[in-house]
């Protein structure tokens, strides 16, 4: 963008895009033969979208949300129920995202009145309510028996039912949503979000409408989770409430912290690291939880910028200059 206040080397950006698109392109070339690997890669893509949304709400705007799994659930159940009843995926997904967006707006309202722990509690309560609803309203959601047989969509006549085809669909969404998020963060909205995080009282004193921006931060974050949920349903072909409990939201938080909260790369690194490691070390799943929660504590205490901060260390120590960032 023209006349940016602090010009970042264009090379740095191109490098990131090169890595990003390169990885997306290489995965099917290397793992294309293995349907399971493609499934895992797609799943990671879905979670990156969720964490990207969470990063906007928590990392950039500083508003804690413990209801992100519920937003994801709203998107997933909307798409599942609609496609199972014969509606098009391409109608269901935007609707699922919109429902999550509206839910985010409604949940954002208390954020205006209350802060910190109250906000954590309200969003947690929301997560619980959605989970209870999904588990107990058998007639609508199928309760704990879940919703099986969710169809995968087609795209202008191209059948996307194979894992590799569906991978490309999710990758497409990921690229588009990444561009949109970068746009938002580099626009005046992004600056206003950060201003709220840095000092919300002063932000209000320079004309920032806390009402509008806090609601937007919640709603956009929620819509990202909604889209992710809407992609998760056809990916897994089966969903039940246990995919969206309150603990899942905690887990998202851990991904974000490990990756780097408030850093654009954070969502990507966090989701990839946290989801990929268990694949290499199969077996005792509980052990990862132990390891990752311990790592989260260590990172919080000693290294608040998360793994995304690694490049900062490289820039400061080795190149002796300020590290460039992907967002202002």
């Amino acid at each position, binding site marked *: *963008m*023209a*006349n*940016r*206040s*602090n010009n970042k080397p264009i090379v740095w950006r191109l490098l990131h895009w090169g890595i990003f698109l390169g990885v997306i392109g290489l995965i099917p070339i290397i793992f294309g033969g293995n349907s399971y690997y493609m499934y895992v890669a797609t799943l990671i893509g879905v979670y990156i979208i969720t964490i990207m949304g969470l990063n906007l709400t928590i990392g950039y705007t500083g508003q804690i949300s413990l209801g992100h799994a519920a937003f994801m659930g709203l998107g997933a159940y909307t798409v599942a129920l609609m496609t199972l009843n014969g509606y098009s995926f391409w109608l269901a997904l935007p609707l699922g995202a919109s429902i999550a967006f509206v839910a985010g707006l409604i949940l954002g309202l208390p954020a205006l009145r209350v802060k910190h722990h109250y906000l954590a509690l309200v969003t947690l309560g929301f997560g619980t309510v959605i989970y209870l609803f999904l588990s107990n309203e058998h007639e609508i959601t199928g309760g704990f028996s879940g919703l099986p047989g969710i169809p995968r969509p087609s795209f202008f006549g191209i059948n996307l039912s194979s894992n590799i085809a569906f991978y490309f669909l999710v990758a497409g969404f990921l690229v588009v949503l990444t561009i949109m998020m970068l*746009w*938002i963060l580099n*626009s*005046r*909205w992004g*600056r*206003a979000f*950060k*201003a709220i*995080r*840095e*000092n919300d*009282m*002063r*932000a*209000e*004193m*320079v*004309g*920032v*409408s*806390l*009402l*509008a921006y806090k609601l937007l931060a919640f709603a956009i974050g929620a819509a990202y989770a909604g889209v992710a949920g809407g992609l998760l349903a056809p990916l897994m072909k089966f969903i039940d409430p246990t995919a969206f409990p309150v603990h899942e939201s905690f887990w998202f938080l851990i991904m974000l912290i490990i990756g780097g909260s408030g850093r654009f790369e954070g969502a990507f690194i966090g989701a990839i690291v946290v989801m990929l490691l268990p694949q290499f070390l199969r077996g005792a799943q509980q052990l990862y939880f132990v390891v990752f929660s311990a790592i989260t504590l260590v990172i919080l205490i000693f290294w608040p910028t998360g793994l995304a901060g690694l490049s900062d260390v490289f820039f400061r120590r080795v190149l002796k200059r*300020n590290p460039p960032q992907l967002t*202002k």
Partner: protein
Amino acid sequence: MNNILEIKGLKKSFYQLEAVGGVDFEVKEGEILGLIGPNGSGKTTLFDCVTGIQRPSGGDVFFMGKRITRMKPHNIYRLGVGRTFQLVQLFPGMTVLDNMVMAIQESEGTILSRLFQIDESKDVRRAIELLEFLNIIHLKNEVAKNLSYGQQKLLDLGMVLMSDPKLIMLDEPMAGVNATLGREICERLVELNDRGCSFLVIEHNMRMVMGLCHRIVVLDYGKKIAEGSPDEIQKNEQVMAAYFGG
């Protein structure tokens, strides 16, 4: 001369404690009005009520004839009331330039237009001009929290100037600032005042208050105890009693 700010019977109490107890005064257009009083006399609370950070318990505030009592802070700011803080309030993790641009970006257009506003060259140019005026241009890409206290104070002032406010409210601009810098700030204030900007200044530095202000209002225990020219105030026995133990 018109009144730019009118405060009528303004009250603010916390529980049973009355911080501001029915204060009346006005700031005339083009005037530098000093607001003085011992610690805890309700000066900052009064600022908070005028700028909308706190809800007054009673009374009214008018800005250029418009009632701004109970308006949201961001709307009051957009009308043209700028303010600095006793304890500097910045966006510590953002660069100096971003702090400056932040101070104006919400003043114009709709919220949606801000998502698509790509060209910020006008705001950036203005920010650079002001940073030059305040002699902190060399820090423009530095993160605000790395600035010294005096530099932060200048940045705070710079942010207020970004939006070209009609009324500037300064809360102890001299506190923690060395004498040289203090003189510079004073010169800048006079310069701005010559261009037509009105000021409401809280300050403990009496020499500055007496030298700079056209008129002075004195608060004690949340009540106005005196109002007048610097000379009149200096001769007022009640004021002396409030300050030097009575």
